[in-house]
Structure formats: C-alpha cells, structure tokens
C-alpha cells in the first residue's frame, strides 16, 4: 500500500486514466490523460496495467508527502522533481518511504506530468473509468482537482484482497523490484514550436484555398485560454467568408474549430461534445498528445498530410506505445 498526502497540490492535479469513450451521444466527453505516451510510461514503469489511474499534474507539480511507502513513477514534462531535496530525474520509477517529501516544480517544455503509484490510484469509478471530469464533477476524487491535505491511496490487488479480475493483472510473486527508467531515445520531446500533423476536414470546404494556405503556413501562439477542454490559439484569422456556423454536430477528438473570430481552437478530451463551428482540420491521433502538452506562449504550426500518411502515423504510434516496456532499463 502506498499513501500520499498533498502538501501543496500543484496548479491543477486530477486523477486520470484512459478515459470513458462511448458516451458522446449522452453529451459526455471521454476525459482521460491528455498525454497518453507519458501516462502509459508512468504506469508501466511502476508495473501497473495500462487501465490503472494516475495523477495528471499541470504546469507545476506541488509537494507530496509519503505517509506509507511503495513504488511510484514519474513521466512527462520535466518538473525538476526532488526527493527530500535531491534531484531525481524524470521518466523513471522510484521507491518512496514513509516521511519522504517529493517536490515537483514548474516545467519549461510541455505542461503535463504523470505520477503513477503501484496498484493504481484509487478513485470513483464512473461508467468504467476513474478519470476526473471537472465540469460535471465526476470520477477521480469527488469529481474535483486535488486539494491541499487530500490523501491518495494505491493498493496492489493482493492488498485489496481481490482475486483475478479483468482490470488488474496478476502480480508475479517474488519479483525483485528495482528502479527503472525509459531509454533516452524513446522519450518523446515537447518541442516549441510544435508541429501538429492534421487531416483536412470535416468542413474544409468552407475555407477557400487562400485561407487553407494561411492555415498551413502560419505560426499560431497558444493563448492563456488552454485547459483540458481545448487550446485556443492566436494568429492570422481563418474566419470563413460565408460564416462558420453550422448545425450543431458531434466534435471529433483533435478538431480544429474556427469560431467567428477566426482564431483556431484545438479540442481535447474534456471538450463539449457538440458544436456549431466549422472544423477546418483534425489533428492526427498520433499527434494529439502534443496538443495536451502545449501551454500559453508556445508556438504551433499545422502540417496537413494525406490520409495514407495519417494511417501509417497511427499504426507507428500504437506500435511505439505497445513497445514502451522494451525500452525500460534498470537504474
């Protein structure tokens, strides 16, 4: 069992897992970790199944006190973690002992970091997921962000006294654990400027060739308005001449919506499920995690690709994720 207390909870820390897809027609967005590679790396480094929930830290990570020790892992934007004052690095697992203090600062590149605990962080299971959806106040810890004084608990299956279940894999008895890390060559970077590959559509026909050229050749800056719902960008206007209104319809993940002011908005996991603004392009599934790491001031460029390239990118991305554990090494 591992028990942590939030001494300072950071800017915005929520419990997330892979989300609850399948409820768009109920008006419920999927939620879930915005940076899947970093989330999975943290979970897998600590030996968790991919379905386990972890903590998503935003912009700065805060200070966490260990009340009962166990294995933890940290991956994502580099928050310059320190354990009892000593630098610990990133993309690695480590053993926490009772009384330890883990400090996570602010990040220069990227904005989200995942903190996994062995066994998975406990949280309210809603429609198959523990992900926190702040707007409806559901999942995670009472549907809200972690506050100072909150306790986070993680137990292995044995400690929960459960027999085999679908969610939790068998732990291997007698397995000696050592701290592990992800090879440098497999660590994603969070470059600024960030290039997001997109496919045109669904409503690219609303935008004349000149506007499409502006979209694919301009640099956009991330505004202060970015959260788990979406990222608002600032730059050359893309307002379509015949207006951007359409009949309200379901918004796909990664949609680049163009509201009447012409400033693009990339829709993320907590997005409203329907909208009435034309979507000029959709960010590739293989690049969506990059959008989840963008913060105010970052520069973004859109790079339209043909469908065949998007398919290959998706296949390569899934292969990269499934092979993450091959690239772990013992510290």
């Amino acid at each position, binding site marked *: 069992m591992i028990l942590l207390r939030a001494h300072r909870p950071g800017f915005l820390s929520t419990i997330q897992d892979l989300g609850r*897809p*399948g*409820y*768009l*027609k*109920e*008006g*419920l967005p999927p939620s879930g970790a915005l940076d899947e590679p970093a989330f999975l790396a943290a979970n897998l480094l600590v030996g968790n199944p991919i379905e386990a929930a972890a903590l998503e830290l935003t912009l700065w990570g805060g200070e966490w006190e260990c009340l009962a020790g166990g294995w933890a892992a940290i991956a994502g934007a580099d928050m310059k973690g320190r354990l009892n004052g000593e630098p610990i690095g990133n993309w690695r697992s480590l053993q926490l002992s009772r009384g330890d203090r883990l400090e996570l600062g602010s990040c220069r590149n990227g904005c989200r970091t995942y903190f996994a605990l062995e066994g998975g962080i406990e949280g309210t299971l*809603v*429609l198959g997921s523990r992900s926190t959806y702040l*707007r*409806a106040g*559901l999942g995670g810890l009472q549907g809200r962000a972690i506050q100072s004084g909150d306790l986070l608990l993680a137990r292995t299956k044995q400690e929960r006294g459960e027999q085999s279940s679908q969610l939790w894999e068998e732990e291997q008895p007698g397995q000696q654990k050592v701290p592990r890390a992800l090879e440098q060559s497999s660590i994603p970077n969070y470059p600024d400027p960030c290039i997001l590959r997109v*496919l*045109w*559509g*669904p*409503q690219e026909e609303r935008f004349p060739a000149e506007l499409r050229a502006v979209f694919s050749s301009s640099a956009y800056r991330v505004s202060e308005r970015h959260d788990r719902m979406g990222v608002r960008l600032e730059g050359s206007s893309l307002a379509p001449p015949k207006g951007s209104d359409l*009949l*309200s*319809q*379901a918004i*796909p*993940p*990664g*949609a680049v919506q163009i509201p009447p002011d012409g400033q693009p908005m990339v829709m993320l996991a907590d997005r*409203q*499920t*329907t*909208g009435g603004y034309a*979507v000029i392009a*959709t*960010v*590739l*599934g293989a690049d969506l995690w990059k959008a989840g790491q963008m913060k105010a001031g970052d520069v973004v460029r859109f790079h339209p690709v043909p*469908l065949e390239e*998007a*398919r290959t*990118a*998706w*296949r390569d991305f*899934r292969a990269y994720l499934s092979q993450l554990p091959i690239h772990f090494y013992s510290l």
Partner: protein
Amino acid sequence: MREAPRFHLAGESGLWVELGTRIDPALSSLARALAARIEEWPEVEEAAPSYAGVLALYNPLATTMESLRERIAEAWAALDPEELPPSRTILLPVAYGGEYGPDLEAVADHTGFSAEEVLRRHASTLYLVHLIGFTPGFPYLGGLPPELATPRLPTPRTRVPAGSVGIAGSQTGVYSLESPGGWRLIGRTPTLLFDPRRDPPSLLRAGDRLRFRPLPSSDFSLLAEASARGERTWEEQL
C-alpha cells in the same frame, strides 16, 4: 430513393456522414437509426447522431476509411424507416416562475402575454429532442411556439442552477449542469437530466418527445431530494 450521404474525414479514426443540411425531424430520426446500425459493427467504436448526420469513430487498424464508407453507404440505402428506434414521451416536472424562473415576467413583458399564458403555452407544447450534447445530458429541443421567442440576457449570469429551463431566441432548453449562461430562465426541474450513477447517464435521448408538467413550487425541494437519491421523478407517457 434516398439521397446518398456525403462523407468527410474527421481524422484518421473518424468519419462525418452528412445526410443533409437542414433541421428536419424525419432526417434526424433516420440519422439516429443509421447511428444505431453502425454502432453494432465491431470496427466502429462509437456513432453519434445529430440533426442531419452521424459522426462515426472507428478503429483504423480494423478497417479502412474506404471500406467503412462503402459499408455505411450500403446501410443507408437499405435503411428501413420501419426499424426506427422507438420514441418515448417524457413528462418532466417544472416549477415555473418565482425563485425558480426569475425571468418569467421579463418573457411575459417581451411577448405581450401574461406570465400565466407564457406558462400555459410553454407547458402545453410537445418538444422534440434533436440531440444531446454541449454539456452532459443537455437536450437541444425543437418546437418552441414562435410567439414565445425572447432574446438572451444582455449580460449572461455567472451561475445558472442545474435544471433551469430557459428560452434563448427561438430555442428552449434545460441546463443539465450548473454553468454560466444567458438564457431567460422561466422555470426549473427538480429532476436530474444527467446522473452518472445511471447507465445510460442521460435521462433524455435523441428522438425522445418531451413535455413539461407544471409543478407547485412547494413540491420542488421534495422532488429534488428524491432525484438526488436516484429515485424516478419523471413520467413516461405511453
């Protein structure tokens, strides 16, 4: 002969199936039927119907966009209007006016009716749930009597309680969650439109018919508590 759908890419895992460009109840029922059919296919992860189309999210490792497009076109051509999912009529209790509907008088002033007449006209209409979206459980309703149309508030409220029934221009709707908003509030339902303890969590579904049943203000709290306990506080008309 049904017009063939137009297909648009929505990423490498999404296909937007455009069936039309107008609000047409017949078309939205067909969209619903098509979505229900598509969602049965193993390569499709989710299909969300809206006014005049369906968003299909699929696994691009299990199929290609081209074969999915073809399969959807065939399913659309063969769709039998007889197999439409059944439509329910839901009666939702609403306390009109007073603290629950602070803008009822303003709507009365704007429309030239008495508050009682606004209430009577609003509550005697059968509305159609076109789609659920925006926020969890929020119904986009069609059918507001045109004479009740009232512009939004000049300055939106920072906090509108969940369950508030409002009018905005020619639309009427129910806030499913507490949120900011500029709709004119004429009443409030004690019934939770969205309850994550239920599966499906949304009370209303696209295609449902909805009627508001006036509720004495004195009964509001009792029903709100019952709804919070997970009890059924709405009725289905057969």
